Structure formats: structure tokens, C-alpha cells
């Protein structure tokens, strides 16, 4: 029986051609583009000046008084989010069952111009809209918006939410503009995808789709606009910025999406292309169309609405998904405008310049990104209410651990350090003596990628995995990071400050948050489903849930979770760090931690020896509310590894854990390495798995004056009397998302 149908019931969009879906769709079907010269004199240093800009009055005109102080990114997102909820007529939903998946490519500045955490915009919007369900910031660069819609479907199917707002947002930033100019990727005029591929135009905007299960939507009288029938993710494993010229990444994303939807290529009547207008993209997409549709390729219209709105980066996939839903609803394919009338007629139908009537129940929306991330969404005409089944259970195990921190590289060195009660606060991992990638790649890599690749390879070796090439094509990767490469971001910003026409292009390609995940895929040759999660210290536990869903849904048998963050600059010295101690301070650190998540049947078939079983996981969002809503609290536990970092948030976590789980020893790892954000979240999972299989856990050896309870409530020895049977791992991005992962013995 088919799985629970998920539908779109509300749309919201603000971009260069419309302040709402009606205006947007009217201009798309009328062929009225929105690419105009940038008036801001700061951009006069660039030869290319066209962009898809949102007029200021469209933003200010739609934000009520309490919201006018928001930065531009949050303003754009809030406008589109409210539109989608309003169209869906969604009221009175249980806040804990209402989630948000936001795609975003760039770290964006606050109103004063300072960078905010990646998930900040999402927190602002979700908190204002009273959402406390799943909250995921997905940052697969230009594929993020489409990726968000797919993940939202997963969250609903997994039963974690009854309604999810999925979308994307990105503003037009000077630095990003300079980066694309430096890559010679900008067209000097309005872009002309598919016919005169001389470059792209950047754009800005936000778009959201409100997703619900079909049954609940119909029960409350909502009108489904489209079904999110399937989606597919893939990794090129080819290059940091260039698409794989063979198009195989795009091909597998589309094939996976159709398989997920239970449809074939013959069902597809329109493809919303990525269509940036760069020669590499447009040539690759044509190959994808021919490879996927074969002799039918010329009969499947495909168009690029970037010819109207420019490339809105993290928002693009969501803006295009909104257009695809409207195309399906009205039976109209928006055109590719600016199409060169003199272009040599090719074998494909790019819907040149004029909108076209469509007669189809299935459309596909494709996006391709830096880092080699690809996503395809399959949207269909909503069907009637029907019987559905829960996903079949599939046991998932953790089979390989690859921590790389100041404590050591690999699980053997880390275990030894933990047993010896060694500390390496804020210390950068040493990777001397071994390269973990071909030298030709390794020598050009930034530090974060090197750490992440080392961690990935060590976890792979620890798992004893030896897979043939064909199987590597389906191995997934979920990358988790709070802030990506601080080294590359800093280097790029410095270069722009010095001369916007001489950006450090190598650093620019590593500024996107998913770049490191892409480098891991490229190095290990992994081409399965891949995504990147940026929710601070909760990134790794969210990544683990995504990995479990990929395996449970049959999209992969093996998924690598890799978490990495770094601190550049001075590490404070002489700071006492002991999580849960009243006198503890916090020290930032650098680490990468990977672990292998595998279907238990796959592990057994190859004779692997797992560390631990996944027994459950869950996340809640919004202001701190104890452990309410988290998984695993009713199970008998032997150990809790907390999210404490040594900072001010430790006390409420400790108080909540001691109250809810009396007698279970509590510990945390940040006292060993410093706060390595996403990597600390992953290290806690790794150490819990180690406690279960090998009976070794990080002890709070320096704890003297606990913030809650007494010393006996905390783990004081690294060698457990016996291996833990069950361990709970807490994760936290304070003020945003908290999670719990429950691991059990095999």
C-alpha cells in the first residue's frame, strides 16, 4: 500500500516579479520579466549589473509595525510564510506539530550588518508564527529550497508533524555578487537560459509551501493544490562548483524522485529546469533531459523561470516549486523568456518566450548546486483521500565511528584519550603524517574539509566497509555544520574588502555551507542522497534522523553522517571548562566527527559489528521547555550524554535531566574538546555508541560544584562498570532546537 499522501495547501512568494503568488503567476504567464540594473552605487564596480531585485516597498508594505525592525532576510521570509499559511487557512494547529524546513544558501547579516547564525532567520519566523515542531535549516546551496520541500514530506510521513512550512530565502548580498562576478558566472544583461548561455543573474526572494497530510487537509476543509509525490537527492562527487558534465548527478536525482513517487518518465508533462543561464549548467541540463526522457525528451517542455527572477540561491528551489504547483493547477507552462529567436532549433522544447497550455498531472522541478548537490521534486495533481500505510520498520545501527578532534584522529586514539582523562580544550586536530585524499585534491582543501574527510574516512574504515563502485552510488551523506568553514568565509570576506573585483574564488566556492559535504562525497566517491543541516549544536542529531529516514525509506542502506565546525583565531587560555559546573566557562573548539549509519540487515549481511542500535530520536523547537516532547525518556537508561558546553545553558539542562531521569549518570564531552558546535553534537553520539559497545564514556573529572544535584549524579569515571545498555544523547542549539537520540545495545 502507498505511504501517506502529502499535499501542498498554501503558497507564498515574494521575488522580483511579484509580492505574492497571484502577481508572481500573472507575470510568469504573461512573460513579464523582472531583471533590472542594480541601482545601489556600491555595485558599480562590477561590469555585470542586472539582478532580480525585490522593491523595498513590497517588503515594507507587507510588514506590520511589530515586524518593521526585522532584517531584510527575515522580512522576506516572514511575508512569504504568512501568505502560505493564510492561503492554506491553517488555524489552531498544535504548535508542537507545526514545523518549518527552511532552505538558505548564505549566512545573512542582521540589520546592523553582522553575520547571524544560519538558523537565526528561521528562529525569528518560526517563533513569531508559534511553531514548535520540527525545525531544520537545510543549506544545500542553490538546491536548498527544493530540498526543504522534500524533507518536509519526510517529516510528515515520519509522523513528526501535521503541518510543515517548507521553503527558502536569500537576499541579494554584495559579497556573493562579487564571488559570482569573480567566477565569471554573471551575464552582463538579463540572463537568457538555454539559448544564449552567457551567465546568470542573481536575485533575491523568499517562497514557502505549506505541506500537510492529505487526510488532515481534507478533514479540515482545505483545498489541496498539489501532491508532493516524491523527491530525489544526489551528489555529483565531481567538483566544488562545476556540475558533472555527464549530467549523471541530475539524472539520478530525477530518477530517484520518480521512483519515490512511484511514477515513470512517461508520466511527466513538464519540467521546471534549474536554468541558470551558465554554459556549464545549461549544457549539463540538456544532457539530463535527454538521458532521463530518451526519445521523448523533445516532447517534454522544460523552462527556466530564472529568466524572470534571476537566481535566488537558497530560495530558488522553493520559488520554482511554487511556480510548478501553479503550472500544475492551471495547466500552463511558464516560458523561458529572453530566448534567442535566432538560436539554432535544438532537440529540446524550452518553451521559448510564450507560456504554453499543458495537459499533465505530473511536473518535475529540478535544482543543481555548488558542492554537487542535486534535487528533483515530483508534484502531481491531488488525488482523492485514500488508504495509506505507515513506512515499514527497518532497524538501523551505527557501525563506524570517526572522531577527529584535539583528542586524536580516529576512535582508537579518542578512546585512549578519554580513558586517560586527557583534555584538549580548543585544540585543533593534528592531521600530520597522513593525507586522507589524493594529494592533488588535499593540497587545495581548507582545514574544515580536511578534518571532515579524515573523519569520514576513519569512520568508514572503522565500519570495515568495502563496497563496490555500484553500491557507492547509493551511499548517502548528511553533513552537519553550524557555520561551515570560518577560514574560507574569512578569507573571502577579506578579499572582497580589499578589492571586490579580485575575490578569492577558491574560498568563495567553500563559503557555501554544503561545500565540505560535497568534498567528502567527491573524495569518497559517494553519490547517494545528500543534504546539509545547519542548526548549530543540534545539527548532528537532526542529520542522524535524516539518515535514518533515508534508510527506512529504502533510499540508502548506508549513510555517512559527518559533522564539522571550526574556530579560527585565538583560543582563550586559562578558562576552566567543566560542563555542569557553576564556575565553568566556555571555550570554542574545532573538530570533525563522522559516524556510519547503516541498515541492520545490510550490516549483518556483510558481517559488520555495530556499536549500537537506533531506538528513537526526536526534536522540539522554540524556547526551552525542559525535556518535554523529547524521545526516550520513558526507557530505562544507563547514561545520559548531555548537550552542555560549559556555558550558561548547562544549568537548565542539568536540572531537567536530574528531575526527569533520577539516578542515571549525566555527562558531556565539551570539557574535553571545547564547544565544537555541530561536531560536539556528533561527538556526543559517537561517545554514547562507544559507551554501549565498549563501556567507555567521557567523565566529568573536573566537576566540583554542580549547577544542579550532587556530584554523584554525574559520571566521574570513563571506564563504566559495564557497557551501557541504553544511552540518551541530548543536543541543543540554544533558543532554537533541542533533540534527543536514544541508542541501545545490539
Amino acid at each position, binding site marked *: 500500500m502507498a505511504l501517506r499522501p502529502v499535499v501542498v495547501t498554501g503558497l507564498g512568494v515574494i521575488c522580483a516579479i511579484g509580492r505574492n503568488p497571484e502577481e508572481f503567476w500573472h507575470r510568469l504567464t504573461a512573460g513579464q520579466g523582472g531583471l533590472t540594473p542594480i541601482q545601489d552605487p556600491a555595485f558599480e564596480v562590477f561590469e555585470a549589473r542586472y539582478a532580480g531585485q525585490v522593491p523595498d516597498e513590497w517588503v515594507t508594505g507587507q510588514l506590520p509595525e511589530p515586524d518593521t525592525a526585522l532584517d531584510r532576510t527575515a522580512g522576506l521570509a516572514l511575508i512569504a510564510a504568512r501568505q502560505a499559511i493564510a492561503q492554506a487557512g491553517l488555524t489552531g494547529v498544535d504548535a508542537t506539530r507545526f514545523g518549518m524546513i527552511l532552505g538558505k544558501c548564505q549566512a545573512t547579516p542582521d540589520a546592523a550588518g553582522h553575520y547571524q547564525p544560519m538558523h537565526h532567520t528561521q528562529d525569528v519566523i518560526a517563533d513569531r508564527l508559534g511553531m514548535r515542531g520540527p525545525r531544520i535549516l537545510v543549506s544545500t546551496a542553490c538546491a536548498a529550497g527544493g530540498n526543504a520541500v522534500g524533507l518536509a514530506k519526510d517529516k510528515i510521513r515520519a509522523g513528526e508533524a501535521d503541518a510543515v512550512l517548507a521553503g527558502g530565502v536569500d537576499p541579494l548580498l554584495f559579497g556573493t555578487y562579487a564571488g559570482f562576478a569573480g567566477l565569471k558566472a554573471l551575464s552582463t544583461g538579463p540572463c537568457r537560459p538555454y539559448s544564449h548561455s552567457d551567465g546568470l543573474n542573481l536575485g533575491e526572494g523568499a517562497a514557502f509551501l505549506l505541506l500537510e497530510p492529505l487526510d488532515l487537509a481534507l478533514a479540515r476543509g482545505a483545498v489541496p493544490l498539489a501532491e508532493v509525490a516524491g523527491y530525489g537527492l544526489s551528489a555529483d562527487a565531481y567538483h566544488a562548483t562545476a556540475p558533472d*558534465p555527464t549530467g549523471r548527478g541530475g539524472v539520478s536525482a530525477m530518477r530517484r524522485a520518480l521512483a519515490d513517487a512511484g511514477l515513470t518518465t512517461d508520466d511527466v508533462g513538464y519540467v521546471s529546469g534549474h536554468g541558470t543561464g551558465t554554459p556549464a549548467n545549461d*549544457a549539463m541540463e540538456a544532457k539530463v533531459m535527454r538521458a532521463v526522457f530518451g526519445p521523448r525528451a523533445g516532447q517534454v517542455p522544460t523552462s527556466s523561470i530564472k529568466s524572470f527572477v534571476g537566481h535566488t540561491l537558497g530560495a530558488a528551489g522553493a520559488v520554482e516549486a511554487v511556480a510548478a504547483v501553479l503550472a500544475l493547477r492551471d495547466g500552463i507552462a511558464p516560458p523561458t523568456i529572453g530566448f534567442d529567436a535566432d538560436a539554432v532549433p535544438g532537440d529540446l522544447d524550452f518553451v521559448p518566450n510564450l507560456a504554453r497550455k499543458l495537459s499533465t498531472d505530473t511536473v518535475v522541478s529540478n535544482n543543481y548546486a555548488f558542492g554537487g548537490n542535486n534535487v528533483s521534486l515530483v508534484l502531481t495533481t491531488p488525488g482523492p483521500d485514500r488508504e495509506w500505510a505507515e513506512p515499514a520498520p527497518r532497524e538501523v545501527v551505527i557501525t563506524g565511528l570517526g572522531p577527529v578532534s584535539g583528542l586524536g584522529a580516529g576512535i582508537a586514539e579518542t578512546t585512549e584519550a578519554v580513558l586517560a582523562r586527557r583534555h584538549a580544550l580548543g585544540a585543533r586536530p593534528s592531521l600530520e603524517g597522513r*593525507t586522507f*585524499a589524493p594529494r*592533488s585534491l588535499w*593540497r587545495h582543501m581548507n582545514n574544515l574539509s580536511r578534518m571532515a574527510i579524515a573523519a569520514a574516512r576513519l569512520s568508514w574504515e572503522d565500519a570495515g566497509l568495502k563496497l563496490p*563502485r555500484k553500491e557507492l552510488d547509493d551511499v548517502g551523506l548528511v553533513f552537519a555544520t553550524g557555520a561551515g568553514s570560518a577560514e574560507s568565509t574569512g578569507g573571502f570576506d577579506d578579499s572582497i574588502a580589499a578589492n571586490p573585483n579580485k575575490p578569492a574564488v577558491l574560498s568563495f566556492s567553500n563559503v557555501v555551507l554544503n561545500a565540505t559535504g560535497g568534498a567528502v562525497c567527491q573524495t569518497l566517491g559517494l553519490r547517494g542522497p545528500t543534504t546539509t543541516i545547519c542548526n548549530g549544536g543540534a545539527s548532528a542529531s537532526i542529520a542522524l534522523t535524516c539518515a535514518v529516514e533515508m534508510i527506512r525509506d529504502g533510499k540508502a542502506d548506508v549513510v555517512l553522517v559527518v559533522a564539522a565546525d571550526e574556530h579560527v583565531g585565538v583560543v582563550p587560555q586559562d578558562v576552566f571548562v567543566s560542563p555542569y559546573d557553576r564556575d565553568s566557562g566556555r571555550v570554542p573548539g574545532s573538530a570533525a566527527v563522522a559516524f556510519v549509519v547503516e541498515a541492520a540487515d545490510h550490516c549483518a549481511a556483510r558481517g559488520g559489528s555495530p556499536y549500537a542500535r537506533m531506538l528513537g530520536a526526536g526534536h522540539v523547537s522554540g524556547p526551552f521547555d525542559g525535556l518535554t516532547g523529547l524521545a526516550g525518556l520513558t526507557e530505562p537508561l544507563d547514561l545520559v550524554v548531555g548537550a552542555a558546553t560549559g556555558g550558561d545553558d548547562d544549568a537548565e539542562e542539568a536540572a531537567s535531566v536530574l528531575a526527569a531521569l533520577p539516578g542515571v549518570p549525566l555527562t558531556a564531552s565539551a570539557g574535553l574538546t571545547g564547544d565544537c558546535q555541530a561536531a560536539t553534537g556528533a561527538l556526543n553520539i559517537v561517545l554514547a555508541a562507544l559507551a554501549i559497545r565498549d563501556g567507555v564514556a567521557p567523565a566529568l573529572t573536573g566537576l566540583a560544584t554542580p549547577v544542579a544535584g550532587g556530584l554523584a549524579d554525574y559520571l566521574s569515571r570513563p571506564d563504566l562498570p559495564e557497557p551501557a545498555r541504553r544511552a540518551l544523547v541530548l543536543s541543543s542549539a540554544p533558543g532554537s532546537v533541542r533533540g534527543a537520540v536514544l541508542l541501545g545495545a545490539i
Partner: protein
Amino acid sequence: MTLTHPEDTVYGQVGDATVPLRFGDLSAEYKVLRERAVALDLSGHTLIEISGPAAVDFAQRVLARDVEYLTSERCMMSLVLDDDGRVVDQVLAFGREDGLLLESSVGAGARLLEHLRAVGDEGVEIADRSADLTVIGLEGPYAWGVVGRLIDGELASLPFEAVSDTVWNDVEIIFARTGFTGEYGYQMIVPVESAADLWLATLEHVTPAGQEALELAMLEVRQPIPRLETAGDVNVIEIGANWLVDVTKDEFVGKEAVLAAFESRQGRRTVGFSGGDTVPEPGARVLAGGEDIGEVVFAVRSVGLGTTLGLARVEAGLAAAGLELTVEGAGVTTLTSPYIVPKSWSIPII
């Protein structure tokens, strides 16, 4: 020889292999290679399989470039050196799931095999696969179009040195994007029993070119031709093949000698030259202002340039482009490579 060719094919002995030097007219074959695409009978290249638990460690030790993470979808060119840093061969190394496959240069298989066996480790199996595998090449600015018609258009746009295990006519072949001449280049490693069929199928789309046209086109882009450039007491730096060695590797056979050569800064360097109507023999003296500064490595008549083209090995300070020198009484000019700009550089794969 694995493949059969027309009766008027001119063969020659190159090292341990008998190979077709030309099928007809060298000039015509060369022009097709540079203008369109040709098929190459590369059966003079020996395939050697390195397998066993220590295969990668062994390959990492005997190859001068880094192959530790050479996956089954990549290949790379590397030198194989002896302890003294002399070139044993220049190979194309293919990553395989259970080891590596090495493709020797033309006619050098026996020598390479002997060297590998001499330095072989425990846990490594070294097998000559030339009895059951052979190589067919495609080269030219439109070779990608031939790939599309012959096998699959998707393979044509593989990145340089990418490898794909694929199927042609129900036969499993190893397909690689390679290239010797600066033009788009591909190689197909095929079971011997199917090689004739694949060769004939290839010839439905292109004409063949022999070793002479291939080596001329290689010289024009300064692609090393080991059999002509590595004779005698010369080191890697004198040959100008530094790019086929990675001295950042921890260890490989010949590394110390290469490092010593780097550090000594002594010896000669190789530079291209053109000019004159006759083709000088290897060893012919090269003069600058009447002074003997070195010798000719080898030279040929270049169809593309319409004059003599060769390599000279001269004193390091004089290995620069644009110098007027004398070889056997004829004035020649030293060149910067490539000596001919390949057409492929301005033709995209569509």
C-alpha cells in the same frame, strides 16, 4: 598483434611489440587526427594487473605519483622509476576495486613487468593480462562524437582521467577519458576475443591512424614519449617529466634520486625546436654561437608545422624558448609548448 589490418599496413618493431606504424599515408592520418578523429590500435600497450591485499601499498611504492586513493573510476599517468631515478616506463594506472591495472607505454610491457616482479612484495599478485585484454583508442577533436555513436553519449563528457565500467555489445569494457595528443582522447580496454568486433565497429565511424601519426601529435603537445626520450643516463628533470612525479609522497622507488636531482640543479634540460629541411638523428649536436650546448633527443618532420620538429637536451640555462640555434648546419628556433594548438581546445563537447 591482436587486431588484423589491411595488407598494405606498415608495421614496425617498437620495443617488444610489433605495431602498425601507418595504415596508409602518415600525413593524411595525422590530419584526420588533428581535424576529426582517428582510431588507434594500442595493442602494443601491455596491461598488468596488480592485486592482492597489499596491492595499493605496492602500487604506491612503485609508482612515482600518488595512487593511494585512486578509485575505480579514475586513472592517472605516472612514471615508474628504478632506484637510481631512471625511467622504467610511463604508465596509465587505472584504479580497480581489488587493486590497479597498469597500462604500459608502447612496447615497454616486458621491461615493466620484469621491474615490477623484481620489486614485488608479499601479498601482491602481478599478472600480465595482455593475453586476455587489449586497448583500443580514439583521439581527435570530434572523438567525443564517435563515443556517442559507438557506445553512449554520456561517456563522451566524462572528465579527463575518469573511468567507467560499461558494456558494449554485451561485452564488459573499461572506458576511460584519456588523451595523448591534446585532442579529446578515449581508451577502451576490451577482452581480446571481442577486440576485433569493437575495432571493426569503431572503423564504421572513423579511420585508423598508426604509431607515427600518434607520436607526431604527442610531440606537438610535448606529451612525453618514453621510448624516444628516456634512453641513456638521464633523470626525470632532464627529461622534463617532473609532472609525472610527486615528491610530496612519503616514499616511492627512485624518490631519493629524484630529490637529489632536484637539489643539485645540475644537468641538462629538454626544449623543443623547429626549423630546417632535414631530420637530424638522435645525438646530433646542438650549437649556440658555434658552441656545443647539447644534443638532439629526437626529431621528426612535422606535418602541421611543415618543417622539422624535435626535442633538444641542452644546458639548463639555454633551455628557453625563442633562441636561434644550429643543428647539423641548419638554423633552428627553440619553442614553447604546445608547438601546435589542438583544435579540441576550442571545441566543446555537445
